[in-house]
């Protein structure tokens, strides 16, 4: 099927408890559907590329940047916006409410009524967490998502300040210094789940509001949601570009003014999901991770936490909550940016990538997957299915990212170190780095130097001196070659010293 033949997508979803049916390009941003097509302007556009978080909404309860969500991926899902964040309302009132074209939902009739505010909204006002207000809807939703998730885990304490800061780190505020926002969110805890718009039986009976795509600031490519792996492979073979979490792809589309390529949405393919254990032929454990596994899932997985904590640590260092909720490890691998945070971990752990194409599956070691700047061993008609990470007993893995800031940061240097210890000596040493060459890479000379030695300060210094000769960093807008070189050696040295 060519792009011209691609039919307009029909996407049915709910917004704040009310059904909506959208017709138009599947690649239209959820942000545009909310703001332009539905008139819900509480979500703001601050950058259009997932950096500021001002367009945040809740998608099936998770905080996401709506500028990075193609509407096709919202099919059969629930969206909650600031406009819907009211105290639970009786079903008949909810049903009587409509989402009108001018976005006047519910509250409009009673301006200034603090009584009708949700608990967190009231806390924002009381704490003085609002100034210009442009980030406020997103901040309130970030707090809401965080507090509801805690409530659902049964946590009823006042959250730690750092946890709140992490929960809002993907949403910028330029007015407040964050002090009072953090205070407001802490003051609203615990926030019971009833504070959310309840699933409403009356709403299910409503006829959906029909909307068509209006104007948009960004080109909206057609999107086909693949129902099966075979369908996905057929479309990929036809030149459709695979879409997973969209956190890289939609940013790239935004920067490209030309007619966008059609996308094949992989998000419904069960084969690409899940985290599990397998046994290899020799009886060793292998951690198997579906390509669509998000960073949030990696962070939340008890299996990963137990067997490969460095991977969870890596996931926690990517972007902030919104990107972690949507970005996938498969996307990170296939995009193959030299700055991809997961890639040094995969290289250091001898991970294998399972690819699937028209003629079946094949397995490629991570070490031979990244062939040149943003080029991989993946053929044009292949998809990345899953990752297999061997878990040899006694192996240690360490991860360190030096980013541009403490959240929403792209790495200047990222490093993973792995080894097994035998009688005080290191064996099977792996040193892998990112952001220091056109591809993520291993440092074989440094590995050889460390192999068979113990982690002494002298060895650490030698390794640091060696690794800087194995990398070819450049000056770019994020850092300098000299800095990357110096810091690569230093963080390797520090990891070795800490291990001793």
């Amino acid at each position, binding site marked *: 099927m060519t792009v011209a033949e691609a039919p307009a997508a029909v996407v049915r979803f709910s917004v704040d408890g009310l059904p909506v049916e959208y017709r138009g390009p599947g690649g239209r941003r959820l942000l545009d559907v909310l703001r332009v097509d539905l008139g819900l302007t509480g979500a703001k556009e601050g950058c259009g590329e997932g950096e*500021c978080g001002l367009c945040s909404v809740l998608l099936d309860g998770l905080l996401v940047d709506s500028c990075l969500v193609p509407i096709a991926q919202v099919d059969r899902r629930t969206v909650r916006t600031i406009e819907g964040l009211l105290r639970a309302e009786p079903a008949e009132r909810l049903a009587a409410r409509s989402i009108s074209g001018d976005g006047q939902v519910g509250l409009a009739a009673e301006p200034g*009524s603090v009584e009708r505010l949700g608990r967190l909204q009231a806390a924002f006002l009381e704490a003085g967490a609002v100034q210009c207000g442009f980030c406020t809807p997103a901040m309130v939703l970030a707090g809401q998502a965080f507090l509801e998730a805690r409530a659902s885990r049964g946590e009823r304490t006042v959250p730690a300040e750092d946890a709140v800061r992490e929960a809002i780190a993907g949403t910028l505020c330029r007015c407040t210094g964050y002090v009072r926002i953090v205070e407001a969110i802490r003051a609203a805890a615990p926030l019971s789940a009833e504070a959310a718009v309840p699933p409403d039986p009356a709403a299910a009976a409503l006829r959906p509001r029909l909307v068509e795509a209006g104007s948009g600031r960004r080109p909206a490519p057609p999107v086909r949601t693949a129902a099966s792996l075979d369908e996905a492979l057929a479309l990929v073979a036809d030149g459709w570009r695979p879409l997973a979490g969209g956190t890289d792809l939609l940013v790239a589309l935004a920067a490209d003014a030309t007619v966008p390529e059609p996308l094949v949405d992989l998000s419904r393919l069960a084969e690409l999901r899940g985290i599990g254990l397998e046994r290899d032929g020799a009886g060793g454990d292998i951690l198997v991770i579906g390509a669509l596994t998000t960073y949030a899932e990696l962070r939340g997985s008890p299996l990963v936490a137990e067997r490969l904590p460095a991977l969870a640590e890596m996931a926690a260092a990517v972007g902030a909550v919104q990107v972690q909720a949507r970005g996938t490890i498969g996307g990170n691998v296939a995009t193959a940016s030299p700055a991809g945070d997961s890639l040094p971990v995969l290289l250091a752990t001898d991970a294998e990538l399972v690819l699937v194409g028209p003629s079946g599956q094949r397995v490629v070691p991570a070490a031979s997957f990244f062939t040149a700047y943003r080029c991989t061993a993946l053929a044009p008609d292949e998809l990345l299915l899953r990752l297999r990470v061997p878990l040899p007993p006694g192996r240690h893995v360490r991860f360190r990212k030096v980013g541009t800031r403490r959240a929403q940061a792209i790495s200047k240097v990222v490093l993973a170190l792995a080894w097994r210890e035998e009688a005080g000596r290191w064996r099977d040493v792996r040193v892998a780095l990112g952001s220091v060459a056109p591809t993520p890479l291993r440092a074989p000379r440094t590995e050889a130097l460390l192999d068979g030695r113990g982690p002494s300060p002298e060895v650490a210094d030698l390794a640091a001196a060696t690794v800087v000769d194995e990398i070819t960093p450049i000056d770019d807008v994020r850092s300098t070659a000299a800095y990357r070189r110096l810091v690569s050696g230093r963080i390797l040295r520090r990891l070795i010293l800490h291990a001793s």
Partner: protein
Amino acid sequence: MVLRRAAPGADGAAVQRPPAGQAGTAVGRAVPRSDGPAKVTGRARYTDDLVVPGAWYGATLRSTEPHARLLAVERDPDFEWSAVVVLTAADVPGDNVVELMADDQPVLAADVIRHVAEPVALVAAPDPGLARAALRHLRLRTEPLPAVLDPLASEVAFARYEFGRGDVEAALASADLVVEASYRTGYQEQLYLEPQAMLAVPDTDGGGATVTGSLQCTYYVHAALARALGLPRDRLVVVQAETGGGFGGKEEFPSGVAVHAALLALRCGRPVRLVYERHEDLVATTKRHPAFVRHRTGVTRDGRLVAQDVEVVLDAGAYETLSRVVLSRGAIHAAGPYRCPNVRVRARTMRTNTPPNGAMRGFGAPQVEFAAELQVERVAEALRLSPAELRRRWAYRVGDVTPTGQVLRQSVAAVPVLERALEASAYEAARGRSAASRAARKEVTASPIAHGVGLALGWHGAGFTGRGEARLASVAGVALTAEGAIHVLTASTEIGQGARTVLPLLVAEALGLPSGAVTMPAQDTARVPDSGPTVASRTTMVVGGLLVVAARRLRAEVEARTGQPFAASYRADAASHGPTRVEERFGGYPHIEWDDERHVGDAYPCFSWACDVAEVDVDLDTGAVEVRRMTSVADAGRLVHPLLAAGQVEGGTLQGVGWATLEELTRDEGRLRQDRLATYLVPTALDAPPIETHFVEEPFGDAPHGAKGLGELPMDLAAPAVVAAIHDATGVWVDELPATPERVLAALEGARVEAGRAAR
């Protein structure tokens, strides 16, 4: 809502108020923000949220060269031009000038392009995609001209000032010790989160327009529209929409955006929406002026300050905008808040072929105060004195004389804010801890994290410089409507700082009414008088003062008519007598003498004072600086709304921390390299330290309510405090902002090499 009046050292804002007899009135208590409910529910409408059926989308074609002769704007013959509207300089009906101080900046470049991202042509189309496509099919035919990109190499100054007291050269020659150093500060983007946005709706007869937008200064926009459109002012209306932050970035820049939108709307005969995307906003809009500052400071062996020689150079960019007054404020603050008998300040702002720099919170003061405060730290180190003790000795007291010859007659709180900050932060104890941590760092396996604490003391002149306020002659008023409502009439805009809460609060207090009884209608030039721009930390002090006087007059008038207290009688008075409107025009504060040419006299009616203490961790492996805690003590006179005031301090402090550590903008042949939010980095909640705010209240006696300016003050001192803390942690000076990990590590490496050389 409870404001913690915590003892020093407790977390959160500790607001101490004098026991003055304010009980029973609204001022000083935290009434809720009037715009709060709309903002927390998403109902607040910013410009791009406004639905206007049939509106077209505007777009701007910008230059890609720093300096060139513009020969033609060429249209691709294969594009369907009939579907869009294209305008160039030839289509500007009035003067091709963005009205401001100098008439040097064109609405659209006509013959010469003077900086990258200069607007050259405008497009409007029914669909944003089509507007974008049209831009792609326009081409600029140009002939390159040599570009001047370095302000120190530029030969064209937009303004120069030289002033001072005593004999600096003689005093330097006889000083026991002269400390000399140079400092550089980089650009800073205001990064208001709502990008520039304007919506222009033409009148049906095409002879006027209403422009609604994101802006700080309705009357600046109004004047610019009249000038460029060649239309009478009474046919133009400017309305402020809800505005998502300004920080100076919506002071003068929106005038040009508004003119562009209105030109397109009048040509199309339909509404036109002109909303920048972030990328365009970053590359095209004004920034904080990069600065070069050189200090020579003479002291005696026992620590007396005898001479200060300061040279300031600001990079203005291609057009003057507000550079003349930014430089003036920078020069006046350049020596810091310190008593010195011999001072010379030489300052200039230079033209370069880069986008013009403009207003940003602090307005020239943060750059010079960064340099002045690090200079004090250097002198303290040279004298082996505590930086706190040195400041304690040098800081201004009442009766001291500033470099412009201004005698500080009242409201001088330099020492009180200093002492309060030292106490609240336990500064001297923290310095002791960093010394201990430096000593413990000899071990090879020691932690790479070094702790440090830094101090900065500063001042900020409140309101416009010199005769600026008197020249503006702002008008603000209070209206009792026929329906018995009370309206604040002012052009002062709500940009997040809380004007729409604070100004009604002041009026309510003066009228003896509860705070909710007074409202502030939309900032619409058809309805409100020109109370001047919402800039220069002047709104609460100057406009608030006018409103208090106007309200007192209204109260007296109504009480004289009714013979009863205002609160009990104003509704009946409105019903029987009809509406009453009282306006008050600013007539100048007493005792202000100022010579603008020579920069001599009373530069400001009063100053606000602040002291910041920063605690940092420096990772010696990576050079990364983590600001662990900020203690910020401010004096802005009597506080009208302590909660909003604390919000100003916290937000300004974090902007200072960002500028100090993270926010870097550089150019390559005049082109901005950090042109996206993925590369221009501002602090996230995880980068932001806890900020502990304290207030000292030294009222300003010549304002009816005792308030001084606050908005900009918190921007001035975070950066020098952070960099002083980096020095305390590491022993190295970082004399250029921002103190990025790259810069810190380079300084550490430099020191290591030096130490190695010395050892040989």
